[in-house]
């Protein structure tokens, strides 16, 4: 069995950034850009006596899914919590720029048959956000990535994969939310402030970060799926993520635009309604919200297998036109 075939069966949660990057595109098609051999590591960490990595904790490159070039950004949570600093941030921005550049080149080269050849960007998040050791550069990178999203919008899909150990938190929580479409596994987590920080600021009675079940009920894939904060929920394997990604890539740019959760006047209004609802409902636990959206026995939902969950779970009904498109 080839390495790629083995990778397909790998737990997405357990896989390194490089394994995810290699496995998420077609067999043997991944080319890493600014890989370890280029030795572009953080210039800031050595003076602080912190360990460095040849790739600065972010794997970037390009592969194919069918005929479409897929630009991959894959974050490594094991290296300083997947934090984004100057080099890693720069690699993210550059990858997005390359993808947008490729879009224009392909459209020019195949004026009549570019559909089905257009690039896509996929970001496999595993991060707590800005790297505090180089926070100015890190924050700037967040803004620049968002900026590139604006340029890419309507041209090429930018897709999030969230199913790694650290989850997607901090400033990168905003970045993830701002992508066109989010694929998660049950083990994935998406949020802004991490559980420990909430506990530290608000007290253990408000949020007990050691209660992992609570943490997952609040930020985990199943909750995000019910809330429509993520579009698709898949099994924890590279293959499952890749299959879902390949399926999504068959959709038109218009359908993909409809999957966005933020980024238009209407969507802002919808989000504001949710804020209003939260005040009225004053939920004590995510389960109160699940119940509100029609799940009669919310306590069983975390226990269900993915297949049963997808069959049984009632999701929040999206009000915005097209927003009802779901997995």
């Amino acid at each position, binding site marked *: 069995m080839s390495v790629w075939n083995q990778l397909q069966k790998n*737990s997405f*949660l*357990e896989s390194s950034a490089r394994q995810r990057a290699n496995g998420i595109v077609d067999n043997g098609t991944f080319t890493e850009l600014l890989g370890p051999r280029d030795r572009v590591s953080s210039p800031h960490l050595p003076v602080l006596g912190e360990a460095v990595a040849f790739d600065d904790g972010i794997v970037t490159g390009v592969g194919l899914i069918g005929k479409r070039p897929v630009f991959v950004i894959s974050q490594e949570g094991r290296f300083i919590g997947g934090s984004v600093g100057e080099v890693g941030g720069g690699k993210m921005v550059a990858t997005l720029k390359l993808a947008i550049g490729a879009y224009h080149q392909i459209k020019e080269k195949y004026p009549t048959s570019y559909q089905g050849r257009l690039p896509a960007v996929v970001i496999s998040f595993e991060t707590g956000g800005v790297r505090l050791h180089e926070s100015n550069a890190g924050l700037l990178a967040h803004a620049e990535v968002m900026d590139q999203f604006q340029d890419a919008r309507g041209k090429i899909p930018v897709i999030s994969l969230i199913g790694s150990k650290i989850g997607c938190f901090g400033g990168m929580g905003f970045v993830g939310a701002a992508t066109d479409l989010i694929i998660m596994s*049950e*083990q994935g987590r998406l949020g802004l402030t991490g559980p420990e920080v909430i506990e530290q600021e608000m007290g253990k009675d408000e949020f007990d970060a*050691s*209660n*992992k*079940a*609570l943490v*997952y009920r609040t930020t*985990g894939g*199943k909750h995000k799926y019910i809330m429509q904060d993520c579009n698709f929920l898949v099994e924890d394997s590279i293959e499952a993520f890749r299959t879902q990604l390949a399926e999504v890539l068959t959709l038109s740019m218009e359908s993909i635009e409809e999957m966005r959760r933020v980024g238009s006047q209407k969507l802002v209004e919808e989000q504001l309604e949710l804020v209003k609802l939260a005040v009225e409902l004053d939920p004590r636990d995510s389960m109160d919200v699940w119940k509100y959206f029609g799940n009669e026995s919310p306590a069983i939902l*975390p*226990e269900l297998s993915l297949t049963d969950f997808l069959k049984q779970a009632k999701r929040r009904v999206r009000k915005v036109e097209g927003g009802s498109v779901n997995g």
Partner: protein
Amino acid sequence: MDKETQRVWDSLNRDTQERMAKARTIVGTGKVISVDKTVALLEAIIKPGDKVNLEGNNQKQADFLADCLCKVDKNKVYDLHMIQSVLSLPSHLDVFEKGIAKKVDFSFSGPQAGRLAQLISDKKIELGAIHTYLELFGRYFIDLVPKVALIVAFQADKEGNLYTGFNTEDTPVIVEATKFKQGIVVAQVNEIVDKLPRIDIPADWVDFVVKSPSPFYIEPLFTRDPALITDSQVLRAMMAIKGIYAEYGVQRLNHGVGFDTAAIELLLPTYGEELGLKGKICSYFSLNPHPTMIPAIESGWVKSIHSFGGELGMEDYVRARPDVFFVGPDGSMRSNRAYSQMAGHYSLDMFIGGTLQIDKYGNSSTATASRVAGFGGAPNMGCDAKGRRHSTEAWLKCGQEYGMSHELVGNLPRGKRLVVQLQETFREKLAPGFVEELDAWKLAKNANLDIPPVMIYGDDLTHVVTEEGIAYLHKCSSLVERTAAIRAVAGYTEVGMLAKPEDTAALRKKGIVKTPEDLGIDISRANRSLLAAKNIRELVTWSKGLYNPPAKFRNW
């Protein structure tokens, strides 16, 4: 003649009756007392200088009664001699700081180890002795008989019968020692019901019952999340399985608690299966219901497990596997630390666990210079039971290989328990696992102990497993040779650096030291993908949904 008729033969009982009469003026005639009278009750039944057993188990804690004891008037109750197996809650030491208790005899103090060392060195606690569980239980019936026992159970009925169920642990041994020497037994319970699932402690051994304001504290001590097992633990697990379990046909055993042994448990259905070992090893355990045992149990490896205590979340799983666990007529398991320790001492082929430090002679200790952690149960299993007379294949083979046997018993065949330490040469932050001198020496000095606390003595230790190799220490015929064998596997620690390559080569030739290569182990396979379950969720799946992990372990 007159003198003899005057001799009183039931002074203990008379003393108890006096105390009970005083108690009755406070709590009335019933057995069930109210929360607000509990402190006053303790003041009535406890006298200065009493030996008091406060039930602190490895897991369940009589926390409410411990708090009440801290609140008694120290002008009425003082100089108590506390006898308890585990010092685990802050209140267990508060009672000394407040001047209510003076002396302690105990077995294990995990979470309070640092504070205990400080209190001993400040002379706020007079230390009797640090025991193993079985040793302390033994003394309950000789010279440390409790006058008052403050115990804990899940449920009581109105008569005062108790249900201790899954987490029975130490309760029976404490109650029996106290009550049959005319002492007084007070139980805190989570609830009082009309009918108990079964009676673990009969009512006439219990004097008072109080429903505590909140359920007793219990810690899931034996749950190891497979997600945290490292590749080097997988490697040591592969080596242990191939080089020891398979080599000796180890059928009856105890696993210490830790990630190393969790890795072994999770490798049985994969690597163990591949080596064709099912049925040949690991059939009988003296062991808490470790969640990481689930895949091996489900794959048919395990015939029987008797447990010291329970484990939170394993109740339903254990209930559904009565062929494997010891389950009562009511359907729930009854753990029993005394019996399981006895089983562990006499009936095992092997004890395997981890430690903090091993010295060049093979003595090992979990003590550090500033923590009096105690022993718990490991030394009862991590030793050769001198009273053992029955024979098993693994025990006999180890005895036949024993290099010093002839020096000690001549030509008489005798077996030997396998006592195995799994040791990482360096732990996190590069703390060495092998040292020339144990920190236990420093602790003995700091805390005025008579002897350095040693968990397993070198003469009991038969095997050390590190990533460098396995040292079959029992095969050595002298202390010099043992030290050379320990150095050979001690890697780049101060102990290992002194290894002489020619000694190591000779030991490998003799089969006293085996490297992973000698064992035919492919190191590149040593990674987490070999684990039968890689996270808690997969354990739940293996258990067919019967394992119900505590919230802090649920990644979903």
